[in-house]
């Protein structure tokens, strides 16, 4: 039996109510599926306890700003079969709240802390959720959202800085090489 069949069997055994049409195979050992927000934690609990998906590989978010949703991707791994399952949940971008998973995997608390900081997604009850993980003293919108403009932020924050002057390289070199000509270009 190949990995793809085994993966389908595993999911069927745990969640017989799921139709196999929702499974989007990327590779024989990697499948993605969309899951409703309310059933996700229950489904992951069953997949972890009965389906052998014991390893939380990652938890991350994708900002689909044009659809006004955040996509959360929970990637779980079954070490026995060597297969991965990515469960995708769509959250309302205006009120992004999701149930916490830290009771299943303690490491999920770290991922959730980062998502709160970087995307502003709330996970009520997750430990130390409001303590900054990376951005100490950050005031402003969550920076990994698509509408956060990194270029504008850098220009506003770092330029102009006292003591720093901007030089036009062409005029500067002309000034240095042809000082007698008043900075004019005498090559022409």
């Amino acid at each position: 039996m190949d990995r793809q069949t085994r993966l389908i069997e595993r999911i069927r055994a745990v969640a017989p109510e799921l139709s196999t049409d929702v499974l989007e195979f990327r590779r024989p050992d990697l499948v993605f599926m969309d899951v409703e927000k309310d059933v996700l934690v229950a489904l992951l609990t069953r997949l972890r306890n009965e389906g052998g998906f014991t390893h939380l590989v990652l938890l991350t978010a994708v900002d689909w700003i044009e659809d006004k949703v955040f996509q959360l991707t929970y990637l779980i791994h079954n070490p026995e079969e060597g297969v991965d399952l990515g469960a995708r949940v769509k959250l309302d971008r205006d009120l992004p709240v999701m149930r916490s998973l830290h009771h299943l995997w303690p490491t999920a608390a770290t991922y959730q802390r980062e998502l709160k900081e970087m995307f502003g997604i709330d996970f009520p009850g997750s430990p130390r959720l409001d303590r900054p993980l990376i951005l100490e003293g950050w005031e402003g919108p969550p920076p990994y959202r698509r509408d956060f403009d990194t270029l504008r932020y850098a220009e506003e924050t770092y330029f102009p800085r006292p003591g720093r002057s901007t030089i036009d390289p062409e005029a500067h070199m002309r000034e240095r090489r042809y000082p007698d000509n008043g900075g004019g270009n005498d090559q022409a």
Partner: protein
Amino acid sequence: MIRLDGHRDRSKFPPREGDGFQVDLDSEKFVKIWHGPNHPGITGNMSLELTISGDEVVDATTHVGYLHRGFEKLMERRRYIQCFPIVCRICVPEPDFNEYCFAAAVEELAGVEVPDSALWLRTLVLEMARLTSYLMWLGGQAGAFGMGVIGQWLTYHRDLVLDRFEELTGGRIYHMYILPGGVRNRLPEGFDQRMLAVLRGIEDVMADVDQALFHNAVFRKRAEGLGVIPRDWVDPYGITGPNARAAGAARDVRRDMPYLKYPELEFEPVIHHQSDAFGRADLRRRDLLLTVDLIRQILSRMPRSGSFMARLPNVLHWQVPPGETYVRSECTRGEYGYYLVSDGSGYPRRVNVRGPSYTHAIALLEKLLPGTNIADVAGLAVSLHTYPPEIER
């Protein structure tokens, strides 16, 4: 490990856990200190906020954020080919795993077929990176227990491997060698002989290290029993790589989910059943020797001719079809993976880097530290093999 039970009269110590346990800094029984951001325990900058009672850690919190450059966000504003020189910066001592994972994820979404020769060269470069990283780590672990000279021996041999990287890729630290579609170069003339000479030197020095470190009474006494990871923590705490294999979990991405040319190589993952700092060091020593063996196998089997780069469309206008994927590899510290989402434009929609330090250095380290003697904190932190930049990509 300095045994805490050695403090037999504990009447002057506050309780360590249970109902009476409460960190009250005004009681003058506790001191809070900052261990870091620069300290011998970590390659890079990462702080440990320790609450100490006497010489014993009662509470620990990991603080990261000293190296944040926002790589994932930077990549959203760059074309795929422009991302490729960025990804290697995410992990300084072993950049090649980043290059491989990113390249493999883009190739999978774009449907690019990589030439056979390039797959062999990628396998070789990944194993060479593993070798340099292990040599550096072993020196760091010895240094954390006060044996700096072992680090000097190993740094010398690591430099010789970096010389081989330099002649192959042009770079010593950041190689920028594996790019979407293949690799940048084939092996230079006479590379095999020089690489094999370096491997012989490494085997010689490892015999010395075995005597000087693994049979050293001080190292044994301090490392044995330090930072024990039980087998049943492996899944809840997301432990991968040598840390999991030392705990008895036979997991190695190279064997379990084969990629590149690993199915054609003969090897068995190294497993250990002593899940403390000593066991992990011993496992990494054997893994290092396995890597030496793998490099020999690769050099003897790889084809010397053929294309090493697939034909790509104009990379400055390259639009990758929409989709998402996750690609992983076994790096020196565990599972390294890239989750890549494309929306069909010329820029990646989202790149997420899954580094093993993310789980090892925060949740696991905070769990392991309480009860440790303060002199062993650096040794314990090294034994988990953490590189902070991949935590805060």
